[in-house]
């Protein structure tokens, strides 16, 4: 059913410096924030830059700041977040702005590499599929964090990232924790050393901004707490 109302949308234009530009967008039923941004680009200003791919919450590319909070725009309904009939859309915080709503995600993913977030196979040429025993503490911990889509929302919501640009951040540390709990992986000595530094897990204040905003209901705070314990144990055993 068509809705007669229009939405007043303020969209960030430019790079690190720029201004908000206002657009009027027809309001529709079940409209997502990404629908609104796309409507603006198709009907009002083709030069508007933003990023998306899957539109169903799988790829993690559409995150933006909506009315002050980081959100996955393809799965965020306007009805849920609009302030009356107004919407403010800005690029994600804590990342360099490329143009308009598109941020440079390189610093975010570089930190996944710095946290040794890649799988290191214990057995290069396994004769058969490796069995991961289900229901163990380790497999439950790995499962809890594995559905991360790399959207950067937690990174934008974290005050420690804001205060310390070197801080590895919730997503990279969550990734490291899933690997620490992966029985097929053999990279833990290097990994724990990588996340134990000043800019690693011990910098986290457990403020839970990441967990509060993660659209996948992942709890990076818990993963980071796990890393804090694991690095402590490793230090006691003289492995750090």
């Amino acid at each position, binding site marked *: 059913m068509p809705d007669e109302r229009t939405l007043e949308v303020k969209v960030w234009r430019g790079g*690190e410096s720029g201004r*908000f530009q206002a657009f009027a967008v027809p309001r529709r039923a079940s409209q997502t924030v990404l629908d609104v941004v796309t409507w603006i680009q198709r009907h009002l200003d083709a030069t508007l830059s933003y990023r998306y791919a899957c539109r169903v919450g799988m790829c993690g590319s559409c995150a933006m700041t909506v009315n002050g909070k980081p959100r996955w725009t393809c799965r965020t309904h306007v009805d849920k977040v609009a302030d009356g009939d107004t919407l403010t859309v800005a690029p994600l915080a804590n990342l360099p702005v490329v143009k308009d709503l598109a941020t440079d995600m390189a610093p975010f993913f570089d930190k996944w590499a710095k946290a040794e977030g890649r799988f290191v196979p214990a057995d290069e040429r396994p004769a058969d599929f490796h069995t991961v025993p289900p229901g163990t503490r380790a497999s439950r911990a790995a499962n809890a964090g594995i559905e991360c889509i790399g959207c950067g929302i937690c990174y*934008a*919501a974290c005050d420690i990232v804001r205060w310390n640009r070197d801080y590895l951040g919730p997503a990279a540390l969550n990734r490291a924790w899933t690997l620490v709990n992966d029985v097929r992986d053999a990279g833990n000595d290097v990994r724990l050393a990588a996340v134990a530094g000043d800019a690693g897990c011990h910098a986290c204040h*457990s403020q839970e901004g990441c967990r509060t905003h993660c659209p996948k209901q992942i*709890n990076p705070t818990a993963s980071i707490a796990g890393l804090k*314990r694991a690095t402590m144990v490793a230090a006691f055993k003289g492995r750090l």
Partner: protein
Amino acid sequence: MSPFNPVWPVRSHRGYLAFVVHRVSGVGLAVFLPLHFLALGTAIGGEAALEGFLRWTDHPLVKLAETGLVLLLAAHLAGGLRLLALELLGWRDWQKSAVAVAAGFSLAAGLLFLLNLGL
């Protein structure tokens, strides 16, 4: 501070509130500590000096400040316990309510102290 992203909306959740309470109470206690040592120091100066100081603490305003102090201590203690539970015990869902319990505990301790004043 970014021109397009205000910082406060992402901070409006319980975990951040708990962080602020913990930080502010910690700083408050650190500021109080020299005063505490000063009071203990008066004991070295003889009984009369300590007596004088203790009488000063009978002043209602000082009593009120003491209540605030107990609140700070209780809040900081509760915040510390919350962090320990969160980080050392691993995450359980019941810990979501840890923030609420921490707040309640600090309030209760402060009120208890207030009641004791009247006795």
